[in-house]
């Protein structure tokens, strides 16, 4: 499948935006403008954007904490995200949930993330089952990590989706670590995608730093799901390029491993490709980056000027 110039440009924008928003967050955190902890997703851009762009607007996704690109590409704005990080009333969770947690908005088909991993999987399965029961031609996508793959709920979710042949796309982001824990302490196999066979579903391994590879696999899986084929498991091999969260200097990661992956940065790879086929040049890139910086400046200003939630609202919304 040839990827259209338009798709590549979109992908480029969202991946650059995710990266820039991530950097902005780090900067704001250093300035103590961000409340509490902060998760970087650098290295994950091709996964989150590649998978998200394979969905239709009417589909749904349950992203995890390094899928900023998915939130953005589906329509959660940097304004709302920065306001969220700053605990403002204009943040996605209106100051209730922390950093990337609880950033859900079903108007954009996004489920709010919950810490307890891999909770995103079964909720996507349930949404997919609702689609099936209602006869809607929609697909649910769920993300989980290599660490999350050790949790029983990962098994229950994949199995449930398989038993009911539900339209779910499981994106496993294998970024080599779960907090400080290397793959060897989570599993005794090389490819998590091998487990798909235990559910009679397709299991695919892709280069998670290659946007086109992620997009193609996800697109295929979405098509298959929508056609009634059932779930697919896509394992994206990538690398978490920062610590688990901002406080973690990841001394436990071998330097060489980071260097190796740094040479395969997903944005650089995409840009090299786009330059090669004449879709990008230096001018185009600086224009885009300037545009993004301006967008983030505006978003930051919006967030900083947004009020904190009124403490009188503390108990609002515990019940619907």
């Amino acid at each position, binding site marked *: 499948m040839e990827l259209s110039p338009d798709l590549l440009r979109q992908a480029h924008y969202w991946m650059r935006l995710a990266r820039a928003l991530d950097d902005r967050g780090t900067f704001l955190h250093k300035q103590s403008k961000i409340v509490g902890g902060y998760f970087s997703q650098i290295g994950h851009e091709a996964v989150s954007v590649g998978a998200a762009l394979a969905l239709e607007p009417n589909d749904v996704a349950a992203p995890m904490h390094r899928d900023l690109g998915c939130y953005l590409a589906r329509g959660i704005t940097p304004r709302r995200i920065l306001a969220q990080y700053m605990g403002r009333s204009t943040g996605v969770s209106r100051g209730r*949930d922390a950093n990337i947690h609880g950033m859900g908005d079903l108007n954009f088909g996004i489920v*709010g993330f919950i810490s307890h991993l891999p909770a995103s999987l079964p909720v996507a399965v349930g949404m997919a089952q609702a689609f099936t029961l209602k006869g809607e031609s929609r697909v649910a996508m769920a993300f989980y990590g290599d660490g999350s793959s050790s949790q029983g709920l990962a098994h229950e979710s994949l199995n449930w989706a398989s038993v009911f042949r539900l339209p779910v796309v499981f994106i496993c982001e294998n970024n080599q670590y779960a907090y400080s824990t290397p793959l060897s302490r989570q599993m005794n196999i090389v490819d998590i995608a091998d487990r798909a066979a235990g559910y009679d579903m397709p299991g695919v391994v892709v280069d998670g730093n290659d946007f086109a590879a992620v997009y193609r696999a996800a697109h295929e899986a979405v098509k298959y799901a929508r056609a009634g084929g059932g779930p697919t498991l896509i394992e994206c091999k990538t690398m978490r390029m920062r610590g688990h969260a901002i406080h973690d200097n990841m001394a436990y990661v071998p330097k060489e491993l980071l260097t190796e992956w740094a040479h395969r940065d997903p944005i650089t790879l995409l840009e090299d490709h786009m330059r090669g086929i004449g879709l990008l040049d230096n001018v185009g890139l600086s224009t885009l980056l300037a545009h993004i910086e301006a967008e983030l400046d505006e978003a930051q200003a919006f967030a900083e000027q947004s009020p904190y939630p009124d403490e009188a609202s503390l108990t609002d919304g515990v019940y619907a």
Partner: protein
Amino acid sequence: MTWDQGLHKEISTIASEDASARELTYLEAIRDALRYELLRDARVLLMGEDIGVYGGAFKVTQGLFEEFGERRVIDTPMAELCMISVATGMAFQGLLPVVEMQFADFISSGFDSIVQFAATNHYRWGQAVPIVIRAPGGGGLRAGPFHSQCNEAWFAHVPGLKVVAPSTPADARGLLISAIRDPNPVIYYETKALYRSIKGPVPEGEAGIVPIGKAALRRQGEELTIIAYAAMVPEAMQAAAQLEAEGRSVEVLDLRSLRPLDEEAILASARKTGKVLIAHEANRTGGIGGEVAAIISQGAFEHLDGPITRVAAPDTPVPYSPPLEDAHRPNAAKILDAARTLLAY
């Protein structure tokens, strides 16, 4: 009667919808509510282990699979944790799932998803979770530590959840309908020991819907209030009747709803009688009784004429052997004993 002798029996009497003054068992009333809601609202569906073809371990859902088909009455894999989250996902997409735990004891396997996920979505990002979890609880059936539990206190502590526990057929229906229509996750504790042991009049149609959060005064009295719920309500009534025969005037308040508690009704009765006994089948320490006592001791302090007294199971798992289970389980006699002491205070 033990859990295998009778409790699992197939039933031929599906309550007919047009009977005008129906007498239903507690179990039939539950089924009636499920059927009524399934008929009324296409978004309602049932999910659980063995609830479809088999009709459920206790035959609560018997006949519903045949009537509504496999898209509305769904036999699931054996995976409670996933099941609760799947129900939550369905609710996000406009369905109204009613999930059966085969026994309340197995709700602990789905606990994580209930307390962390279902309970918190609305507060965190404004997304309602209209699901019901049916939990057949309680002992007295020689079923041992893993088929007799009363674990409602775990959930009564969790903001975002509602917890109900009917003690009559009418309430069994009326509260279940409310639970299904409630936009929040509701844990519906049904009492196995009452399934077929009690029968009563059950309203039809939109009549008799019981709001969540309202206690029911089962009996008026002046000298003592017994606060109870679920299996302990009939026991409390029996104790109260005996005391009446002895010339004492006892009030019985059936909580029905454990979260939210009907503080107003609790305080009104406590203020009126000045003496309160709380009875529940769950283990004493950390049970609902503690919360009720705290509410009263704070809110009706000046009206109290005696120590707030709790009658509850001792702090052990529910034992299997008949003499042990009988010693373990609170009943009318134990309530009576404690009530006499309190009345004499």
